[in-house]
């Protein structure tokens, strides 16, 4: 990863299927945060899912077909590809290599993988984004997806961006390292275990005494806020990009 803001003039944006369908405002906020740093954003509208649901469910060939399509869509230029999700970014950066390890396309795929960045780590480490908080004082907490933490390693970058906002108090949850129980089709194949996990995660979030949590992954958000709504817990979830954009506009 280069650390020279001056060099990045144009980036590709991979919105993720979940953001596209259910959280488009979060996706748009990510684009605006990138534009704010003087970067031109290209959003190829032929893009779709990264392929992770099939990959994790045992449908490797389907995942591979979908992955190859994404590689082709983003191969017009060697611009960095920015993803507002640690999980999808992890899939594209690391698991595409595994899918294509024995294929002649491997090096094309590798060129693609090397250009994948999770958005908060790109904003912080490559663009050196600086934020001035114009919002009212607020206390909130943070949930990191497992793949943001253990694959992309961007949890600290996300938190560092939040800490730039001077009126925001970040309260950390006790079991931050623990999975919220989403896991894509895991939540469907093992609904009882998934339910126990998301229940405990919501209890942990509640115990921070805050009324808002941020996350960089909309899969976790759908899972956690879905359970909160069902249990009538008055805590709001928001994607970090959308939150930062709101705060810097006041």
């Amino acid at each position, binding site marked *: 990863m280069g650390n020279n803001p001056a060099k990045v003039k144009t980036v590709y944006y991979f919105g993720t299927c979940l953001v*596209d369908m259910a959280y488009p405002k979060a996706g748009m906020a990510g684009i605006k945060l990138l534009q704010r740093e003087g970067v031109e954003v290209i959003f190829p*509208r032929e893009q779709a899912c990264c392929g992770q649901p099939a990959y994790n469910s*045992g449908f490797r060939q389907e995942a591979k*077909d979908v992955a190859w399509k994404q590689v082709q869509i983003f191969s*017009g230029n060697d611009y960095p590809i920015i993803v507002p999700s640690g999980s999808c970014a992890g899939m594209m950066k690391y698991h595409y290599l595994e899918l294509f390890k024995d294929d002649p396309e491997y090096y094309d795929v590798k060129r693609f993988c090397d250009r994948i960045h999770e958005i908060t780590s790109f904003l912080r480490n490559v663009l050196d984004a600086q934020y001035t908080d114009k919002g009212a004082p607020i206390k909130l907490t943070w949930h990191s997806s497992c793949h943001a933490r*253990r694959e992309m390693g961007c949890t600290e970058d996300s938190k560092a961006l939040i800490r730039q906002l001077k009126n925001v108090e970040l309260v950390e949850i006790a079991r931050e390292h*623990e999975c919220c129980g989403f896991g*894509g089709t895991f*939540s469907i194949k*093992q609904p009882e275990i998934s339910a126990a996990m998301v229940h405990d995660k919501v209890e942990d979030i509640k115990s921070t005494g805050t009324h808002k949590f941020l996350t960089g992954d909309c899969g976790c958000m759908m899972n956690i806020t879905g359970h909160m709504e069902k249990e009538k817990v008055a805590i709001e979830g928001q994607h970090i990009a959308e939150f930062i954009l709101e705060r810097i506009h006041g």
Partner: protein
Amino acid sequence: MASNKTFDFKQNIAGALADKQLRSNFKNATDTLRGKRLAVFTDPEETLRLRHVGNQIKRAGLNRLPELLEQLEAKCKENGIIVHWAETVDEANNIVLSIMEQHGAHKMVKGKSMVSEEMHLNKFLEDKGKLPLETDLGEYIIQLNNEPPSHIIVPAVHKNRKQIGQIFADNIPGVSYTEDTAELLAIARGRLREHYRTADIGLSGVNFAIAESGTLCLVENEGNGRMCTAVPPVHVALMGLEKVVGTLEEVPALYRLLCGSATGQRITTYFNMIKGPRKPGEKDGPKEVHLIILDNGRSKILADKQLRQTLQCIRCGTCLNHCPVYTRIGGHAYGSTYPGPIGEILMPQIEGLDKKGNLATASSLCNACEEVCPVMIPIPALIRRLRDESYDMDENGVVKGHGCKKNLLETVIWKAWKYMQVYPLLNTIMLKKLQLFGNKLPKVGPLKAWTSVRTAPKFARQSLKDLAKKEGIRNE
């Protein structure tokens, strides 16, 4: 746990989740074990370096396993150890029985051995009228209560002090209820001492078998392993064939990784190195030492370069302590000798995907197990591999029961999904449909499972693609 034909994972899970005491016991115990591990592996860089060493030793060992096993056999024989090979658990059980019969043995004291659990040895011997007695405190407790272990390292992890007090009061004649740990320990010690003295045969597992010298290493804390291997006249050691290492120099790194990961110790109270029976002039030790080397599907696992990594496992159990699924459902729910993440990859390979393939669904692929595994087994990748083989996608599987989950419905769903991701026009149509009808979908199938504890997902009126188009974001 005894693997049986009536294994119903769903039912086990529901039962475990409904047991609040069990969940609380597991949460407390695994929190403690995780804390202990962290306290001993304080420097992340140093820990990573050590894990790389462990990984390298185990991988190199597996790459020349046949050669190491031959060397181990030859050296053990030189040392006077009688070596037996068992391809199946049935063979291994019968070897143990025949040794007992040769010596007219009735009572066996057992140190902790997961391989003996894998063989269901206790039940086998009991059926033959023998008396196998567990001597590891945790194993002793659960044997009293007629239960299998719930954890690889801490077999009675699912019981709290009060429950253990009750088990003692209910099952040991003349003992009344107490929850005082020191008293409970004294009761167990008193009973066990008498058994060591009077047992006809002692049995143990093997943590590392050193090929260059024919030495069997046994890692333990309670001294019961030492008693089982030194007091009775005959000692039988059981090992899975992957436990062999090349040289003594390889042991310290693996020992440190094992102790630190399993119990958060730098060293254990006892580290036994057994190199044969009592020699002339020696005052103690068994007169005869047997080593049984069990395959039970391991050589098949070894033949596959990716799955082979399963055999790197040193049985520390730390993946269990870090697994959000294991900590909620506990060991028994897995219905398998090895529970948790390692069980999810090992059991389907040993028993078949048709019998145990469901275990691989009990993971959110959060990668917590991979993050802590001392020998760096890529457990999530192997779980994915077993899921792939369950669905037979590449027509190329090697695990028993390959393709057992192949079904038309899921295949059709994923094929349809693929087309919607690959063809932009289909993707656009799907998005439009979701915008119009997504929020009114009937709660059946996957949506029913999802909405059991969550509100239904809400689809946006305008997709990101719509918004980006409106905002004039460059589309290429």
